């Protein structure tokens, strides 16, 4: 087996719970992630799946160190990045990229697509031949060169998400976090974006953490899956194993709850025991 790119042990993240914040003083901390252990193997796509409140997005943000863990360790490419301060992280950022869920909010409305894609290049010492590199990034995601001079609002949803991918991949990073990148898109666009990511990940040998609430999508894209619930890992295994022989009741419930696009008269009939 290949050496893991990420090695995570006992990872805990606690965030201030603003709902319970007293009027004076700090909000109490709520433990979002309750001690996670897992590895992300190099050069493959790992799915992280869970329902809302499972902590999957928090986990993603901790991996790329937008959040600082409260306990445990994150080893990235042999280096402990658990508590690295922002300034020391900056040289590593080139290899820790992210594609956001909502391209509307993740692309600055006042910058051209060129400027958006060029920013990480410039900031990471790849400022030479910017034009060429941006052109290459656009071409890689199947966008015409003329898009370089456009703004966010001049693009469709699918095109925006392509820009998000182009920007993240322009640096040829070792790791990319994809956080629910198709959940706002129509199925036809979703299929395009996912096949694009699938192809690029294969071509560039990327390590990807693919966060999604949709197990159907995960099955196609990922080599292994981590199922999360309430800040803990329910089950983690190779994709085929998970789908063919789910070990945990929760995983089986999740699978059974997906409405497949095929006729099944029994699906909606109440089962003997009331749903939990």
């Amino acid at each position, binding site marked *: 087996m290949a050496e893991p790119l990420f090695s995570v042990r006992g990872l805990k993240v606690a965030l201030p719970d603003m709902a319970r914040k007293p009027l004076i003083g700090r909000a109490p901390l709520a433990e979002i992630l309750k001690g996670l252990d897992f590895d992300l193997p190099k050069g493959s796509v790992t799915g992280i799946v869970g329902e809302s409140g499972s902590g999957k997005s928090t986990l993603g943000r901790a991996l*790329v160190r937008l959040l600082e863990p409260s306990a445990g360790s994150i080893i990235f490419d042999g280096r402990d990045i658990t508590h690295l301060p922002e300034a020391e992280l*900056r*040289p590593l*950022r080139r290899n820790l990229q992210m594609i956001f869920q909502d391209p509307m*909010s*993740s692309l*600055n409305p*006042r910058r051209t697509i060129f400027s958006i894609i060029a920013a990480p290049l410039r900031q*990471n010492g790849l400022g030479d031949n910017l034009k060429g590199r941006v052109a290459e990034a656009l071409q890689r995601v199947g966008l015409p060169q003329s898009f370089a001079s456009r703004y966010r609002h001049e693009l469709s949803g699918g095109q925006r998400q392509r820009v998000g991918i182009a*920007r993240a991949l322009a640096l040829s990073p070792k790791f990319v976090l994809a956080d629910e990148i198709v959940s706002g898109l129509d199925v036809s666009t979703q299929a395009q974006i996912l096949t694009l990511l699938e192809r690029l990940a294969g071509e560039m040998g990327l390590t990807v953490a693919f966060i999604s609430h949709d197990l159907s999508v995960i099955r196609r894209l990922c080599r292994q899956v981590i199922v999360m619930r309430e800040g803990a890992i329910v089950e983690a295994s190779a994709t085929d194993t998970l789908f063919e022989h789910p070990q945990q009741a929760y995983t089986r419930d999740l699978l059974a709850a997906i409405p497949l696009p095929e006729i099944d008269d029994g699906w909606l009939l109440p089962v003997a025991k009331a749903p939990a």
Partner: protein
Amino acid sequence: MDEARNSRSRISRRGSSRHGSGARLWLAGGWLLLALLAAIFAPLVAPQDPLAQDLMFERLPPFWMSGSEPGFWLGTDSLGRDLLSRLIFGARIAFIVAFAAALAACLVGSTLGLISGYFGGWADRIISRIVDVWMAFPPVLFAILLVAVLGTGLSSVIIAIAVIDWTRFCRVIRAESMGQARMDYVENARIAGYGRIGIMLREVLPNVVPSIMALLSLEMGIAVIVEAILSFVNLSISTDDPTWGGIIAEGRLSIHQAWWVLVFPLVTLILTVLSFSQFGEGLKARFDPVLR
């Protein structure tokens, strides 16, 4: 009071997105340009010496009324000074005060608002507390007090207006920066390797610039009014220089004998204030192609 500040900024936002901006922008800009040119070339365009008193010509009515004298288009005041010339020279003071005071208030307020909104934490707490204290002063009284303390004069007026009105910028820009700081592209910039100041200048600032511009224009109008109010209570510039507020104060006294001494500066002032606020909103609408 956060809610209040947020909704304050919402007013300026909603105004801009609704109406077409073209006609407003041109009308408002046209008047301001006219007034500005008159101010710059005042000695050339003013038909009379604004300070020349002539008791033979006191309270002459405007040109279309009987008893008017050629050359005194808008009539004269109770000392026989030409009203049009005084208005033209008054525009000089009005514009100097408008530009200088509004820029100073803008610079201080926007910087503090940006820092407060983007960085949050202690910086925000301290700045917000100062803003609260400032907001507890009646602004006009504060301005009058400051000018009384600093002594009358152009620079006192400018300083007083900047000192009372920086909070307007601070409040709005703080609220907008807070909204910006929550956007994903701020995190995206961190992912790209930018530091905090870099993100503030690169990602946040460009998105609040339209608001700053609209506020700046609005503030210029307000500065003109505050200057007029200060002149009105006889606390602005030295009494020799004609100011719009000073003319209004005279007009208020002789209102039953010579209404025009009040009407013309009042109309000038209203047009100017309206133009500044509409110009700002129009600019904002024009440079905000990316709403939503």
